[in-house]
């Protein structure tokens, strides 16, 4: 599809974004605000943000920060970085004990709207450099947004050197009508491991457009899980490249969509080296008039022989008006590979409901049990039990 034809001409949002951007406005103006004719956005219309002149967010008031924090399921200990409306709140933060060292690694992500928007208006976020062999433990990253017609665009850079490891708990929340547009440029070094557990519970009128780029080196591991639970419109997009042999990637997720909301999990897993493996399990539960989107592509280059790729996405529709759009995609140029994907869409099984009801379980509870059962094999992929419990707590609230 041609990018040019996609520019929603005269969209006030785009004009203001371009004006606000000092250096990269040109690139943004060029790709424009995607319409539904752009393949990557066919199921996720950006109409709702097109007519608003989004301004830079003001610093966040202390009382809204504490109110927002109180609502979040957070670990009690460990390093913590809290950002409010695109600014680091130092008083609330307890940085990791590593030397802050500027990374110049930025993925090109050409033509990816969320990435280009972030580059145009970027605000400095994490700049982590975990030295070789260090297990940095847990870092909780909290990004809060608040205001009306404001936007934030945090830029995070994370580099793990050889054998380093880190668990990143990435929490997103806010109040009001805003756009949160975070970007992560991640490098996972040789034999290093990054576990990226994300909780997205933006305000019910907020828009969340996240983009993660992760380059994984030999025997490195990028293990991610995203719980998409909030936002009026929320897309989590991951572009993960296995660029050396024996890399391992997980891009898992759960989406809980209700009301009139739309949640979207889009991923591109690019096998650019031999012997890599990737695993993806994404489950979406939809109620009310919720809309779910899953777009997952596995691209296997000619050199990426012995690739083992697996992708499963399942959706559970709980109401008449709910809607799921799913596009699992394989693009394979190497012959000695094992790649498969599966997708299912359906409602709760009447027989299973009947079984539970006939044993005296009330209907609401029976449904609840079945929904939990549906989600369990995705949630179990979060290896860190404490974090998994936090996610389960979040789902229950």
């Amino acid at each position, binding site marked *: 599809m041609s990018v040019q034809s996609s520019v929603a001409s005269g969209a006030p949002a785009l004009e203001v974004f371009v004006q606000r951007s000092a250096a990269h406005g040109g690139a943004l103006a060029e790709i424009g605000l995607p319409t539904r004719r752009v393949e990557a956005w066919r199921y996720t219309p950006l109409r709702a943000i097109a007519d608003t002149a989004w301004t830079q967010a003001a610093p966040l008031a202390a009382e809204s920060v504490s109110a927002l924090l109180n609502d979040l399921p957070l670990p009690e200990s460990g390093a913590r970085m809290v950002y409010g409306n695109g600014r680091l709140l130092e008083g609330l933060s307890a940085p990791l004990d590593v030397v802050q060292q500027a990374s110049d690694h930025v993925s090109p992500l050409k033509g990816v709207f969320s990435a280009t928007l972030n580059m145009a208006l970027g605000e400095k976020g994490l700049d982590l450099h975990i030295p070789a062999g260090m297990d940095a433990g847990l870092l909780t990253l909290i990004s809060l947004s608040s205001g009306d017609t404001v936007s934030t665009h945090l830029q995070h850079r994370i580099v793990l050197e050889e054998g380093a490891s880190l668990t990143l708990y990435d929490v997103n929340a806010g109040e009001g009508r805003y756009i949160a547009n975070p970007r992560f440029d991640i490098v996972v070094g040789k034999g290093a491991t990054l576990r990226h557990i994300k909780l997205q519970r933006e305000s019910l009128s907020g828009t969340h457009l996240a983009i993660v780029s992760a380059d994984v080196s030999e025997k490195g591991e990028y293990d991610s899980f995203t719980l998409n639970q909030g936002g009026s419109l929320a897309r989590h997009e991951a572009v993960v490249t296995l660029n050396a042999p024996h890399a391992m990637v997980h891009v898992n997720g759960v989406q809980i969509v209700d009301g009139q909301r739309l949640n979207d999990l889009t991923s591109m897993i690019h096998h650019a080296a031999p012997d890599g493996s990737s695993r993806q399990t994404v489950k979406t539960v939809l109620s009310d008039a919720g809309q779910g989107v899953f777009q997952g592509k596995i691209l296997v280059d000619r050199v990426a022989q012995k690739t083992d790729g697996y992708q499963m996405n399942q959706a559970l529709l709980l109401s008449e008006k709910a809607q799921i759009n799913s596009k699992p995609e394989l693009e394979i140029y190497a012959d000695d590979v094992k*790649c*498969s994907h599966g997708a*299912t869409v359906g409602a709760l099984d009447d027989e299973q409901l009947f079984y539970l009801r006939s044993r005296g379980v009330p209907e609401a509870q029976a449904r609840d049990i079945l929904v939990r059962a549906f989600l369990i094999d995705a949630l179990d992929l979060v290896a860190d039990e404490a974090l998994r419990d936090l996610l389960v707590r979040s789902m229950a609230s």
Partner: protein
Amino acid sequence: MPAVTETRETVEKLAKSSYEWGFETDIEMDIAPKGLNEETVRLISERKGEPQWMLDWRLKAFRAWLEMEEPTWAHIHHPPIDYQDAHYFAQPKKKSGPKSLDEVDPELLKTYAKLGIPLHEQALLAGVEGAEEARLPVAVDAVFDSVSVATTFRKTLAEAGVIFCPISEAIREHPELVRKYLGTVVPVSDNFFGALNSAVFTDGSFVYIPEGVRCPMELSTYFRINARNTGQFERTLIIAEDRATVSYLEGCTAPQRDENQLHAAVVELIAMEDASIKYSTVQNWYPGDDEGRGGIYNFVTKRGICRGARSKISWTQVETGSAITWKYPSCVLAGEGSVGEFYSVAVTNNHQQADTGTKMIHLAPNTRSTIIAKTISAGQSDSTYRGLVRMQPKARNARNFTQCDSLLIGDQCGAHTVPYIESRNMTARVEHEATTSKISEDQLFYCRSRGLSEEDAVGLIVNGFCREVLKELPMEFAVEAQKLLQISLEGSVG
């Protein structure tokens, strides 16, 4: 890995075996000048002796086409097509009603002989009077370039009330039927190639099965693309009234040539209450040479609508030919409890490209669809399955099952799967699975250890891989399809 090496070698060997059915018949043709404009459309309509409404319909399509852009979303690459650099009308200069085979153009007979059509069937094809006596189970409508030169078994079919004739004839003799249904499944402005076809189609087949009639024989069309530089724009319209049943076979071979040729056919199927239409295709057009030069561009729009309750449309295709295939036989399931099926084997080799799949649009409750797509890529070819399953809000308890399997032979080819799944009904159930792999060493070893040669083993595995689809073909086609697979891959692989 000796198996892989041998497979590769055999595929390479195959690539060198020339197109078995590449030949060209020299027949006197009536050809329109190159170029496409309103005049061309008027000329075609005039030559076909069409009524005004048909011309208006074509012009509407042509004007819509002018406004449209050639689609670029498919996973295919080709140099830009110059739509002005082609003839849009070519017709053999035919004397009507030869009395015996001696009067039939000998070139035509040679073509049939090369196609391996038996003599009595040739007589039927060439329209020799009285030839129907030699009973055959298959009725054939031979599309020799753009004009159906012969239609057989008309009498037998007429007795059953079945109309099976060239669509140009149907426009003249059954205008009420054609006007009622033409363009109702694929509207004139549906897509770029469909609109082009609507504007300039020269001929094709028309089938009408009246209420309650089970068509007494399989209906079959041999497509040939013959004169140089004539785009082939076939139009097929099949209507099955309430409780009618028909099985339609379409088979294709084409002469070898240098220029790329555009083929943009449109097929429309309409099934009323309890009706059933089975449409089978074996496509083996010239795929281009070892470097991918030449070869047919096959940009086809095929769509059927299950209008009536409990109706059924089934597409089966074996695609081995063409330089580029762009084809998505679809079913619109509008009748309650209607059924759509799509069975496909697509084989690409050398520099062939195929982007093919189906759309199942579930509009009504209790509708069911099944998609089985098998893709085999070899050489430097690229093959894509692209499919859509859509459950509309009223599709209560609808079901879909989709299985797409790809087999890669050699490390220079590509296999891609692009399914779209859209559901707006909670009671609808969609299941999709797809796999991509090479021929498993275990399976090969198993066969080899039981005394099969490497070649036979690969052949067996490839055949087994496609079996689910091949078994859906009518007998007449199953043999031909297996032979085609052999020519495309197995002849050298296994």
